């Protein structure tokens, strides 16, 4: 294949993978203050759950969601859509977690938030074909939303899966996903 093309495409990939976060352009501050209520506080083993951290000061309208993986073995990647009310919130940016990076592994993230109210997320290791075991809880990815109206919206996972290190990777069974409720005042 053409070497120049290879280099050019690699630059693109590195830009996507290595920036450690991204998303839509920052919007003007709103007067709303956001908060997040998890569906499950301590759901136990084989779960993916979500917590939220409200912004402060001029960022009070932002809520950063932390997607945790809890006590699960052999994870090679994850796939899910995060769905919310587009009239209530909009996606701002994302940043890498720590789960798949464990052991210094390379990880690729793909995020598509081009449809309002939906963030399509893909995360995977790119080296070795070895999965990671999470004995406790660790963050898979951080996703930041901006509250743009008063009210509430559920934060739901659709088509979620943790995938193992089989060849090819298969969705792990018995894993439960928990979202929550985003509130703006």
């Amino acid at each position, binding site marked *: 294949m053409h070497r120049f093309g*290879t280099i050019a*495409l690699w630059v693109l990939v590195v830009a*996507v993978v290595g920036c450690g976060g991204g998303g839509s352009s920052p919007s003007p501050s709103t007067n709303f203050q956001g908060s997040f209520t998890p569906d499950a506080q301590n759901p136990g083993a084989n779960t993916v759950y979500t917590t939220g951290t409200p912004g402060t000061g001029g960022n009070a309208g932002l809520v950063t969601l932390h997607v945790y993986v809890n006590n699960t073995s052999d994870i*090679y990647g994850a796939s899910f859509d995060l769905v919310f009310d587009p009239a209530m919130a909009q996606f701002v940016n994302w940043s890498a977690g720590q789960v798949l990076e464990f052991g210094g592994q390379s990880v*690729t993230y793909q995020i598509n938030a081009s449809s309002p109210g939906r963030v399509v997320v893909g995360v*995977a290791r790119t080296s070795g074909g070895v999965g990671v075991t999470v004995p406790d809880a660790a963050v898979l990815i951080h996703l930041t939303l901006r509250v743009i109206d008063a009210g509430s919206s559920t934060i739901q996972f659709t*088509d979620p899966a943790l995938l193992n290190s089989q060849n090819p990777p298969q969705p792990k069974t018995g894993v439960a996903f928990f979202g929550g409720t985003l509130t703006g005042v």
Partner: protein
Amino acid sequence: MPQIIRYGSDTVPVRTGKGVLASSLPKQGWGTRGDLLMQLQRFACATISLVVGLLLAGSISAGTISLRWDSLGGATGYRVHYGTASGAYTSVRDVGSATSTTLTNLTNCADYYIAVKAYNSQGESTTFSNEVVGWSRPEITSTTPGAVKQGDRLTLNVNGANFQPGAALDYDLVGLPTSLAGDPLVRVENVGVVSCNQLQAQLVIEPTAAGLRAMEVGSFTVNLDVTNADSVFGASTAQLNVQFAEARADVNDSDAATSDRIDGKDLVWLAYSFGSGEGQPKHNTDADLNGDGFVDGEDLAYLATRFGGCWTGSAWSGSACQ
């Protein structure tokens, strides 16, 4: 009477690569020494019944027929007689002492009958050489389409002139990639002549099924030959641009709920094979999106360009699907 032999060209290419439809084309040679001796004897007796030992029609290009023949002792010149009916030659060209010439401005897709006479100071031979007949050399002016996608099966149109029924098409990609098993990734099938100006064939760009290595994305030079039944051929080159088929980014088929959708599962499958080459244990042929035999950053970039998209029933969406 000596035989006059018409043949296509002494440079007829014989290709052996996969995907080549034209069979080997036997060359026909010049006449025998015995023919020439017989003619010489007749010439020496001043009968000049036939002065051309062998007439060949070769190196034919569109609207033209180039001829060459054996020289004959005692002859000082030759005249080429030709027309569109056998034995009724309406045109003549005196070529002097040359033993070859090119007839030009011929009507495409029409039979031309050609014979030669020799002359010297005693006059012109009384009879013609034996006659050759044929069309001008096939000419390829264009081919469509020039851009295809991986997995396409479509009609290839070869446009030009002088394509005779039964003509063979040689469609040979320079540096054609093959599968691990050595199978061609571009094939031409079911060649048929639509008219003297058009030839059609089915162009198959792999893959047609999962698990097959895709045709490599890129621009390829194609050597085209159309060879008529009389072995006269026309050659040309074209460019074939193979584009990425978005459907290939839908790598994962473990979950029917997300089929026709390019999402994280597809990313994970591609990432699992990341860095692998064809034939290696972790290699997933379906994840080799650009068909270069490796799952690498280029494939990841192709997937990234479609990440979140889905099949709408008529096209792949550019934005995230619901």
